[in-house]
């Protein structure tokens, strides 16, 4: 559906400019909800704006629905943009237009006849649950209502793709949940492919099928959301999923964690789904000659599925560790070695 190839974006002169994007390759499948997460300034906003060419990439191609947008004329591009809806962090509603008139705008711009516009706007307002607000002005709406209007406006021309620019970042948690539920509903009811950018992992785990982590203009990690949650690799991804970093782990362990170390007690992260949860710790202790110290753990719902991560300190010889890892692998528990700690005793208690 969306195919970004070799995308770079440099602001200013080539030799002194700021590189916002440095070679992005990204494919979004038809009908999926794809999340892009990154800190502010990581380039996610620029990346999203390249998909409808609000930002023109310095190099690379933007293929949406089989058409390379970078090769189109201005008027062809405008025509294509009508098939790509967009919603914004601060809603971007026209203050001079009522709710109904705001939702009608994309169709007016496309030159559709009055009757057709009226016929399309009503059902759209009903879909987002704002039919009663049709004659209000945006200033009279709450943030959640305003974003619903934004969604209705973005969808009224029935686009195949919906781009969400930090759509819930200005909203409180409860409203965020209702807007995310609405976006999932959009995705299911209309089959709209959704690309969203956010700096909140909560948004990703709530509705996204796949995620890409962007940092300093590069995609450092991407894949299915549950896989990223169970086994985040890049340091930035680990902070996004809320895993303690090396310094925090060291504090919890009471001894320095050596991420590149080879000797001492191993520190593992175990990632497992609900089905494997019960057996993991018990089985490890019963089956193998090892001792186990739980350092931290969490259960999170990702796309409705509870996923657990557990950071444990393992006291065992190398051969036992290998056996234990093979066993865990066989029961579907992901194991990542976070590092080693040197101890004088077995554990500090």
């Amino acid at each position: 559906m969306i195919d970004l190839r070799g995308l770079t974006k440099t602001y200013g002169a080539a030799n002194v400019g700021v590189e916002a994007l440095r070679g992005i390759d990204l494919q979004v499948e038809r009908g999926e909800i794809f999340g892009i997460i990154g800190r502010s300034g990581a380039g996610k906003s620029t990346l999203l704006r390249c998909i409808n060419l609000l930002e023109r990439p310095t190099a690379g191609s933007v293929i949406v629905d089989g058409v390379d947008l970078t090769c189109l004329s201005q008027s062809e591009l405008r025509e294509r943009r009508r098939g790509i809806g967009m919603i914004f962090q601060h809603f971007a509603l026209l203050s001079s237009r009522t709710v109904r008139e705001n939702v009608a705008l994309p169709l007016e711009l496309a030159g559709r006849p009055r009757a057709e516009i009226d016929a399309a706007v009503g059902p759209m307002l009903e879909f987002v649950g704002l039919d009663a607000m049709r004659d209000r002005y945006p200033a009279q709406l709450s943030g959640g209502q305003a974003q619903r209007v934004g969604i209705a406006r973005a969808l009224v021309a029935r686009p195949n793709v919906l781009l969400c620019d930090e759509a819930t970042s200005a909203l409180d948690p409860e409203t965020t949940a209702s807007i995310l539920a609405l976006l999932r509903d959009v995705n299911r009811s209309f089959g709209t492919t959704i690309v969203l950018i956010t700096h909140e992992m909560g948004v990703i785990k709530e509705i996204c099928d796949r995620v890409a982590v962007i940092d300093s203009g590069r995609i450092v990690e991407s894949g299915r959301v549950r896989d990223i949650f169970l086994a985040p690799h890049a340091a930035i991804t680990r902070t996004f999923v809320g895993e303690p970093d090396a310094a925090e782990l060291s504090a919890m362990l009471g001894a320095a964690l050596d991420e590149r170390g080879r000797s001492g007690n191993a520190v593992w992260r175990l990632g497992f789904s609900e089905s494997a949860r019960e057996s993991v710790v018990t089985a490890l202790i019963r089956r193998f000659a090892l001792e186990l110290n739980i350092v931290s753990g969490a259960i999170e719902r990702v796309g409705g599925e509870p996923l657990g991560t557990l950071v444990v300190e393992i006291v065992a010889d190398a051969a036992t560790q290998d056996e234990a890892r093979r066993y865990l692998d066989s029961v579907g528990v992901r194991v990542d070695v976070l590092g080693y700690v040197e101890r004088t005793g077995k554990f500090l208690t």
Partner: protein
Amino acid sequence: MWNELASFLPEALWETAQMVAVSSFVALILGVPLGVVLVATDRGGITPSPVLNRVLGAIVNAARSVPFIILMVAIIPFTRLIAQTSIGTTAAMVPLSIAAIPFLGRLVEAAIREVPRTLIEAARAMGASPLQIVIKVLLPEARPGIVAAFTITVISSIGYSAIAGAIGAGGLGALGIQYGYERFDTPVMVATVVVLIAVVQSIQFAGDRLARRLSHR
């Protein structure tokens, strides 16, 4: 004296109204598009054109830096061409319009710049052309600001029309200068000033009300 006043004042008021109405109308027709073009052609505008922007900006600045009394004299040939005469109320409409166009243009430019950039971005994302962005987004969103700008232009035209009175145009300004200032006729001067204050107050009041009614922010 009161008879004198009663006959002069309405006539002077009518002449001022004509001069201000015509010049304000011309300013509206040409100054609003000027303001739009100044915003649109700016760097980062919807149709950037740095050369046109700089040339227009320079012309506007030049026109605005010439004192009105000098402007009136300087463009007499042009005034004669348009109005067929260079003195009187009709002739004064020409320099009044020439002064009001760049004045309103700059104010409209400022009002349009107040429209949040994300609205322009949203319109572009919807496939709007530059002209559609102007007509469907910028002008409607800036409307309260444009009304306020127009109010200021009308009021400043009233002030300029009084200066025009000094070189033979009629109106309240001429009345105040000829009777009040040159003939030391204090009641006429006071009456003229009172009428001017009342007129300016009413225009500002009406403008504020309209701007507030149009604003839904």
